[in-house]
């Protein structure tokens, strides 16, 4: 009875697209406050997995629980506790930064919206550009605003799908700083990536998704700094 309460619990998750099976009986667990990096080659099913966790896709088979609620049955309850950043920014180019946040704030029924918008813009370092149209933003700025959108409703769980895609070095560094900040507030974070160097300093645990299942999982403490690449390679081979 005294199992630690998991923030995310996945049991024998399978996902099929027609006759093609992408995830096969995947088991996965995340405790509150953990920062899990899911690694794997392209096409391994990372995005599919994340989309299921984000309630954007239904599992074909298996059990998925986020923040104690079951997906897909209790999806609405899950969504209000979830912040998601994909590699598309999910922002409207013809609206200003402020207007984008206002829109999402309304969709999530965020209380005290004006105040919250200012706080979030401050957090992501875009206060100066609040009245500018998003389509004038660089990709790095859009990604930062996207993170702002994701934390607007103060979610407990955050999901990131390869957030560094398409960003240059500076933008990446800025993003990392923001990620640490956001994760540091006791949030549970799951981030997929195929860029090992990036996640090395961010995550508290590393899981490798290969051939539709989690092939290996290791907490940061069990891993010397140089061994992440070896761990990854071994997991893929084995």
């Amino acid at each position: 009875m005294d199992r630690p309460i998991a923030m995310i619990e996945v049991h024998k998750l399978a996902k099929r697209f027609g006759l093609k099976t992408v995830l096969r009986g995947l088991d996965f667990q995340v405790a509150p406050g953990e920062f899990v990096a899911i690694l794997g080659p392209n096409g391994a099913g990372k995005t599919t997995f994340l989309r299921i966790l984000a309630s954007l896709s239904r599992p074909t088979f298996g059990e998925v629980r986020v923040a104690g609620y079951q997906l897909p049955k209790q999806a609405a309850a899950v969504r209000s506790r979830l912040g998601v950043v994909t590699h598309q920014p999910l922002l409207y180019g013809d609206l200003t930064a402020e207007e984008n946040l206002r829109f999402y704030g309304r969709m999530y029924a965020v209380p005290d919206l004006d105040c919250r918008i200012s706080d979030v813009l401050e957090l992501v370092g875009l206060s100066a550009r609040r009245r500018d149209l998003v389509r004038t933003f660089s990709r790095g700025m859009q990604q930062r605003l996207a993170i702002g959108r994701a934390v607007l409703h103060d979610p407990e769980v955050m999901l990131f799908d390869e957030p560094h895609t398409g960003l240059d070095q500076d933008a990446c560094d800025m993003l990392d700083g923001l990620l640490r900040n956001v994760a540091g507030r006791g949030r549970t974070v799951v981030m997929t990536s195929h860029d090992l160097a990036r996640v090395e300093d961010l995550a508290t645990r590393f899981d490798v998704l290969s051939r539709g299942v989690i092939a290996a999982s290791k907490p940061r403490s069990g891993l010397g700094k140089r061994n992440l690449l070896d761990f990854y390679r071994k997991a893929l081979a084995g």
Partner: protein
Amino acid sequence: MERESTAYFKAIGAIVWKDLAAELRSRELLSAMLVFAMLVILIFNFAIELQPSLRATITPGVLWVTFAFAGTLGLNRSMAIEKDRGCLDGLLLAPVDRSAIYFGKALSNLAFMLIVELIVLPVYSLLYNTNLFNPGLLLTILLGSIGYVAVGTLLASMAVQTRTRDVLLPILLFPVILPILMAAVKTSGGFLQSAPMETIWPWLNILIVYDVIFTAVAFMLYDSVVEE
């Protein structure tokens, strides 16, 4: 549960506001629809002899064909905006019932369609010296547009997810909205020619029945169309 219903309506309002605000800035959608509508009327001028004697009978048909075609442009564009930048996911992530997305998009699509129609009417009046400021006609345009947009929003959400996208929407939509077209043309014609209400009523009835049935059905089916 009161909070849930206010959140629901708030979400619908947010979507409508978002679409209108974005459109006000870019004016892409409205200008495309308007220019297209004008071109269609222009083509009709040369394709059909709009002699003064024939005008009364042909006007409703010309108007509704124009609206039907310009409408598909608006519907396509409206859903493409969500699909292209992945924004549909953003909408789906929100903790509201999916039908709120349907109603939000349908209402903003309706708003755009009405705006275009309300601009086309005076232009047509001027070009062909016909008085189109008829309350019955305006009612018909409202009812017809509601039915069109109710089905159109659902079908556009499907079409935008296929490979053939833009081409597919009119193919899917037109056979299914024929009752609206027929009823709207008959009703418009009736009102413009000040025909007795008994002749107009059956058609007005069809419009209302269609609107009610299809709004309800589309609202229930919307989930199946956006969920993965």
